[in-house]
């Protein structure tokens, strides 16, 4: 079959690879019908995740049709249209049973790297390096899905593919950012990053009762999209001082909840941003932290900072003094998608959540390298390129 493979830093290639097979009794094989680029893939491309190897199939946000099931699969059926959670859970360990699926004990068979780096290993992720299990990704014609019963969700009638595909990652990740922040009716929420995850965090925050949601970015088309499609109040950090603007617009309090949906390659302005770029480039820090620092500084006293952006290791100049002295609550995690996906698909079917506007560039899998180039450089207003194998 054809698949999009990582071939080196900033190098992708469509290659012929063997078809996947049922390797475990609870596996299902899915014929991929849509597979999206994701901002977190850019960290792989840019060489910041050290356990990638040339030949790895990437991609983790996808939709497809079940074409084969293992002998111990009980609920999934051949022919079902399913959306698959990008993060793999086993469904049986203590963390999965507690609905903290991205902390699964069993779905990352190669936990050593993360144990050394972080103290413990977290769940396996499709197409996201050998540190995350080394699972082949979804930018391919077919994909093996372990523990198929708990990781693949039937798509209800009437939900368009362009909407459902984002129930795999962008929507549940955004939802989780708002959920773990404990948003209450009347809250003012600020979201850093107007990519797919940030926009879906805005939508979730409103659905949870937020009074106002301010979205921060530098790309006019993304700010406009966040305003037009999910009702955000746009804030361009290249035009105004974010900290001043947030204080002013919240009567000096600061946002009740700050959601960071940017991650380790965040952009910014001024000397702090230049400092971060240099330190990351010479590997004196693995992750750039400007938006995260801003979120912590901006957050009201006693507020909550919810971190959705992907970080690998270490952020320099982390403002622990602000966290401690302002009594902030810091929440984070890779998405516990299995907790939310069925609910999100139901809301999509009822018209309460529509993520289809994120799909700005439908492309064939053969155009994968070009799609990532456009996505990375935000060419032609690209928010998400989605590949059809």
């Amino acid at each position, binding site marked *: *079959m054809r*698949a999009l*493979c990582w*071939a080196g830093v900033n190098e992708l*290639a469509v*290659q012929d*690879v*063997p*078809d*996947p*097979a049922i*390797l*475990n*009794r*609870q596996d299902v094989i899915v014929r991929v019908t849509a597979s999206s680029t994701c901002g977190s893939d850019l960290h792989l491309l840019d060489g910041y995740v050290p*356990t990638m*190897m*040339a*030949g*790895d*199939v990437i991609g983790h946000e996808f939709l497809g049709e079940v074409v084969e099931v293992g002998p*111990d699969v009980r609920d999934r059926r051949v022919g079902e249209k399913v959306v698959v959670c990008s993060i793999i859970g*086993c*469904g*049986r*360990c*203590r963390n999965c*049973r507690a609905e903290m699926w991205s902390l699964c*004990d*069993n*779905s990352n*068979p*190669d*936990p*050593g*790297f993360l*144990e*050394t780096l972080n103290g413990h290993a977290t769940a396996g992720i499709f197409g996201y390096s*050998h*540190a995350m*299990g*080394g*699972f*082949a990704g979804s930018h*391919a014609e*077919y994909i*093996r899905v*372990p*523990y198929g019963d708990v990781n693949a969700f039937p798509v209800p009638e009437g939900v368009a593919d362009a909407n459902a595909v984002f129930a795999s990652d962008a929507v549940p990740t955004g939802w989780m950012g708002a959920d773990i922040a404990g948003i209450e009716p009347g809250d003012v929420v600020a979201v850093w990053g107007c990519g797919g995850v940030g926009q879906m965090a805005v939508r979730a925050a409103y659905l949870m009762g937020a009074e106002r949601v301010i979205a921060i970015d530098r790309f006019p088309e993304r700010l406009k999209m966040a305003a037009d499609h999910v009702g955000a109040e746009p804030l361009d950090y290249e035009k105004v001082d974010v900290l001043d603007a947030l204080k002013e617009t919240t009567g000096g309090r600061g946002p009740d909840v700050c959601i960071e949906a940017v991650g380790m390659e965040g952009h910014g302005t001024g000397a702090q941003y230049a400092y971060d770029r240099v330190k990351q480039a010479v590997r004196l820090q693995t992750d750039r932290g400007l938006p995260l620092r801003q979120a912590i500084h901006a957050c009201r006293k006693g507020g909550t900072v919810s971190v959705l952006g992907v970080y690998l290791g270490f952020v320099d100049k982390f403002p622990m003094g602000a966290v401690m002295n302002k009594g902030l609550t810091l929440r984070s995690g890779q998405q516990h998608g299995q907790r939310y996906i069925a609910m999100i698909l139901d809301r999509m079917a009822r018209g309460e959540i529509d993520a289809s506007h994120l799909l700005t560039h439908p492309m064939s899998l053969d155009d994968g390298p070009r799609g990532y180039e456009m996505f990375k450089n935000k060419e032609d207003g690209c928010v998400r390129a989605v590949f059809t194998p």
Partner: protein
Amino acid sequence: MVAKRSIALAALAAGGVAALRRARGRAALRPGPAEWFAVTVACDPAELTGVNRPDALAELAEHHEVRISPAPGGRGTELAVHSADGTVREQVRALKQLLETGEVLRMEGQPEGHRTVLGRATLPVARQLMRRGVR
């Protein structure tokens, strides 16, 4: 000239040995790795003791000291193995997977694109290292 060079080399060598001794001395002060490798399994302690214990656990217990105790708050069973080297750590992780999910995840045989010669050579070693973990 030769004598001067010899003295310089001897001084370097002496300095190197002293540095090595200091480094060893410091290393000796560092605590060593724990002697037990432990996991918590989401099961009742009774499943890991007595005649019904899994064969893989019985085999581990033949060669290693094994400690089984209930986790606090009824949160499963703590399983610890003494003197666990890389192979044993891999076996213990596999045992936890088997007990909790009914099978051990297989990764070999997945689709993959063109590996470099170096990649082909190092992947099995890297995977084994990551599977076992460094201690």
